[in-house]
């Protein structure tokens, strides 16, 4: 017996010294997480990045056509491409992990509002670096929006800024550089996900556990962070004055020059809903809604999956009813925006408290002995 105990003790010491925290994935008979990941990748995520990539290429081409011959018609074509691409971005903006995280996609293409003072000084000096963190709000969609809508009061005035203005040549170069930066980053992410490129898709599907670094862990944590800080705060709450002692800041809205704020916010929320439901190019497939339903997650007497679905629907309805342009609404008629904000708030609670708790998703690798 003593020998046995010594041997056990020795084995312990070996295990202790060699212990590690790695977690591996696997499928569960009750709910097939791998199947969900395959569906999400094939039905929702890859198509969203593909569309975004195509739209951003189209935007780059339209902008180059405008730069080559700036006139009212090429301006209109550019604005049309901008609108399309910006909406496509709203459908691909909330997976800031893996390839998107590597190229800092979200902060690179959509740090709003645009810092127009720096943009103007970049244009007149002709020197700028798009790889610095401080320059994030001098490029991307907000910068394009400013240059296509905000640099003069009339459309002809805007065209003039690219033709007769003293800085016209520099301005054209700047717009070209902004478009190229967006195109290269988006294309890098789309390629990294695709099977013919970096094939992150395989990594994503095979990381099918529920620990922090697993695909489920990443998606859940990014989803609630995004809805909290982008869908609720940046797009709706901050312009409304929710973080500035109750004083509205109209200048903080997304796409203020193009008046697209509410249209983009609605598009974004609908995309989040589709992602949650698993609705994509191939129809309604497996996603978190099904996951929560299968494990029978509860919400005060009903199903959590349904509670989240209904809350998404309420939030979409209220956000859609906010009068546009949003930068005027926040000061003249804040009540509908307040109502939308409240619905988004409830959605955040469900996505940040209930959903991770029900799925057993943690937020850090830190040790834990159960709250």
């Amino acid at each position, binding site marked *: *017996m*003593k020998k*046995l*105990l*010594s041997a*056990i*003790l020795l084995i*312990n*010491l070996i*295990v*202790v*010294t060699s*212990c590690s*925290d790695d977690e591996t*994935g*696997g*499928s*569960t*008979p*009750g709910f097939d997480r791998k199947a969900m990941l395959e569906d999400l990748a094939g039905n929702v995520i890859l198509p969203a990045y593909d569309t975004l990539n195509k739209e951003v290429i189209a935007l780059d081409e339209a902008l180059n056509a405008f730069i080559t011959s700036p006139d009212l018609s090429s301006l209109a074509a550019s604005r049309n491409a901008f609108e399309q691409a910006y909406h496509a971005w709203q459908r691909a903006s909330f997976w800031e992990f893996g390839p998107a995280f590597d190229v800092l996609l979200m902060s690179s293409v959509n740090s709003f509002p645009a810092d127009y003072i720096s943009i103007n000084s970049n244009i007149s000096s002709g020197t700028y670096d798009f790889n610095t963190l401080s320059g994030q709000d001098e490029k991307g969609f907000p910068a394009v929006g400013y240059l296509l809508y905000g640099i003069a009061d009339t459309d002809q005035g805007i065209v003039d800024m690219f033709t007769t203005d003293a800085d016209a040549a520099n301005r054209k170069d700047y717009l070209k550089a902004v478009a190229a930066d967006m195109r290269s980053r988006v294309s890098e992410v789309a390629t990294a996900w695709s099977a013919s490129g970096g094939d992150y898709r395989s990594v994503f599907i095979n990381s*099918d*556990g*529920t*620990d922090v670094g697993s695909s489920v862990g990443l998606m859940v944590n990014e989803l609630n962070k995004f809805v*909290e*800080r982008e869908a609720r705060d940046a797009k709706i*709450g901050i312009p409304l004055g*929710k*973080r*500035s*002692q*109750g*004083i509205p800041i109209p200048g903080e809205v997304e796409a203020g020059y193009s008046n697209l704020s509410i249209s983009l916010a609605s598009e974004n929320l609908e995309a989040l809903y589709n992602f949650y439901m698993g609705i994509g190019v191939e129809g309604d497939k497996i996603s978190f809604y099904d996951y929560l339903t299968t494990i029978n*997650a*509860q*919400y*005060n*007497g*009903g199903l959590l999956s349904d*509670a989240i679905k209904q809350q998404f629907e309420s939030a979409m309805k209220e956000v859609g009813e906010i009068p546009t342009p949003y930068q005027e609404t926040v000061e003249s008629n804040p009540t509908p925006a307040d109502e939308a904000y409240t619905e988004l*708030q409830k959605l*955040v*609670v*469900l996505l*940040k*408290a*209930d959903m991770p*708790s*029900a*799925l*057993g998703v943690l*937020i*850090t*690798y*830190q*040790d*834990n*002995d*159960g*709250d």
Partner: protein
Amino acid sequence: MRDLIYKPISIAPLVVFRVLFGFIMFVSVMRFMLNGWVDSQYVMPRFFFSYYGFEWIKPLGETGIYVIFIVMAIAALCVMAGAFYRISATVFFLAFTYVELIDKTNYLNHYYFVSLVSLVMIFLPAHRHFSLDVWRKPALYVREVPYWCVLIIQLQLALVYFYAGVAKLNYDWLMEALPLRMWLPPNAHVPVVGFLFEEVWVAYFFSWFGAVYDLSIPFLLFYKRTRPYAYVAVIAFHILTWLLFPIGMFPFIMILATTIFFSPDFHQGLIKKITVVLQRLRVYRDVAPQKYVASAASRWVVGFFACFLLVQVILPWRFTLYPGKLFWTEQGYRFSWRVMLMEKAGYVIFHIKDPETGRQWEAYAHEYLTPMQEKQMSTQPDMILQYAHFLEQEYIKQGIRDPEVRAEAYVTLNGSGSRLFIDPEVDLTKEQDGFGHKKWILSYKN
């Protein structure tokens, strides 16, 4: 009783415990540093949740905290080697406990356990055999010590297990198999037996087995005839929890610590074998043992240990003095060996009002807190109050003379669904922390 606790027994179990404890503490401290947790838990946060009554414990800044951790690692090695033992044990206790007191976000029962054991270690003659201290001063060597020197550690361990078992005797754990019913299914990837974790009956089995294990294991370890089986159960239980849950070093600390229950013969044999190796390496010096002479202070030490245990026996019951559901209010929850007992998550919206202008706005935890601090704060009323007071100070600094701070908090307990946790009408800047009942915690309704 008197005779029993003063009865001389071999020093070997105590010595082996010292070596194992020093070793596992060294591993724990190094692991903590290598995982980057010193940075994420003690350098990055802009605000720390101090313990009530310990607000004077302040973080030391980046250099300071790393120095503390390095000192802690060296002290652990010294405890293991028995070098300058009393000093190194004291230093380890102070450094470890200081770090734990900085921020209650990081409270873990096993950190509390380490603080208690390292406090006890200071007063034990664990360096008087098989140590660098004996190598330096052969006169320190004793072969026997009074039984209380070993008993105190055994009782401390028994207390941890037993109270962990008592804590499991609640409706959710036994009748609903919660939270294990939520925690087990995501572990279905464990090889071979993984599929079992999806079965509800397995969650029930684990819940009941866990309760019976915790309640009985101290007794089974004390009795010689059941001890080997009990130890096999200890290993199986802790390895299983290590595989299933992210509970860090705790399983290994317990597996090593419970060897203190083994017979003196076992420990003597172990030391002898290592001694043979050391002799071959010519780093061992034979010395003659002295007789252990109890110092005048040892009676005080025994008295102190008795009080120490008594406090721990009483402390976990303090929750009965508070109204409401313990898991919901968490009044009297900490320092009671409530390990892996509930699944709780929440979200707090702080509503700020400047009464002078009537303006209202909101503040969120992520502006000042790390994700872990935010998570812990969201479900614990005392931390919500602390953060509300911190926000009050921030706004006063920004020129608002008398800001009002209210918390709209939602909490879900054991997957029941989030519901309102704190009275959203109460201005928390007017409430003070303390041991009294916090009336602004809403009651848990089913």
